């Protein structure tokens, strides 16, 4: 993808920043994450195509923020992000009480993009088809990932 970094930044930075702010809930961390997103995209720009960069940036921003949430999850002074807990609550309301402590285990052995799929479907209100297009998977693949996540959550809840 051939691009002028300054023009690219001017066009997309506010959108990426809003996405990061929404997931991280903090302006300082969101700006750091936004810069990480642009570094990733600009580093690999020769390998990217230029169709709808907003979709690519949205996906990278989502993954970057989820990685940051995982990294800071256990640092008390950074606060306690609620987003993943909300996801678990939406997935299965009965699991609410166990969700917070179980979330790390829930996503731990899953492919890296499973959490992003869950966020897009359950938090961003994307349909399965829209999620599939976003992450480059089949609809049935997305459905299977979410079903596996739900089953895992049920299994964890049933565990004594």
């Amino acid at each position, binding site marked *: 993808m051939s691009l002028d970094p*300054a023009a690219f930044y001017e066009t997309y930075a*506010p959108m990426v920043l809003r996405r990061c702010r929404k997931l991280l809930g903090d302006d300082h961390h969101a700006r750091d994450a936004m*810069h990480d997103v642009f570094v990733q995209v600009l*580093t690999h720009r020769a390998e990217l195509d230029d169709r709808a960069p*907003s979709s690519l940036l949205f996906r990278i921003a989502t993954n970057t923020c989820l990685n940051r949430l995982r990294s800071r999850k256990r*640092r008390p002074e950074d606060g306690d992000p609620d987003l993943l807990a909300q996801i678990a609550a939406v997935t299965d309301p009965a699991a609410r009480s166990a969700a917070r402590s179980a979330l790390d285990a829930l996503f*731990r052995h899953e492919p890296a993009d499973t959490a992003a799929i869950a966020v897009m479907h359950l938090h*961003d209100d*994307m349909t399965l088809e829209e999620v599939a297009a976003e992450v480059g998977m089949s609809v049935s693949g997305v459905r299977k990932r979410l079903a596996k996540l739900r089953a895992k959550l049920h299994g964890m809840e049933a565990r004594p």
Partner: protein
Amino acid sequence: MSSVPDWLAERVALDEAAAHRARIARTDPRELAEHVAALRDDNARELAAHPAGPAAAELATRVAAEQRRLAARRQRAAWRGLAIAAGGAACVLVAVLAVHRGTAERAGGPRADDTRVKGAARLIAYRQHGDSADELAPDTVVRAGDVIQLRYRSGGRRYGIIASIDGAGGVTLHFPADESAPPEATAMPGGTTALPHAYQLDDAPRFERFFLITADDPIDVQDGLAAVRALAQRDDAADAPLELPAGFTQTSLRLRKPESP
């Protein structure tokens, strides 16, 4: 609250919503227009406060550093591939040399067993109790909710990363702060230093094991974490050392979880 999802409004505002016509058709046009207008106002405010020029210059510096890092990584991978391909021939050569020159170990240069589990590097864990903290001996029993503060000493090596694994296979990076940090961010101070963050144990079973990996050169954080993640998936994760390339030192500290939480 708007029924228009943010991501859809963002793409309409950027004129990149051609793939989402069906979804747009299901939204309230007035709401969508208001949402898009609000985003464009926010864009203008953001770019007035943070113009693209200085940000792009800062990004260019980081992108150049990242490209150098990736190039060095590719070069290391190529060397590793070469080393594996040459492995069989090298074994024969070393055996011949050992016969003629005595022990091959004195030949110098890095070897796989340069990875040392022991050394001057040290990890020390403290459990916080209000304003005070107790140092935790290896295999101390800790519980979910305990707040742990780590201190470390790099043992004279200039670079390091600190990560932990738990009995559920989870991996947490403690230093540097982010796994996308460049290798230079693994620089460690001399002396004994506390991590800037305490952290809270979760309910993972069996154990929590901390690793300090050190080296004389900047460490690729992703490579270091890959070794930690590989061990975390193994059955002997509570006891086995990390599999690291030559030139790295590792030390670990294990804390136990109660049998019945």
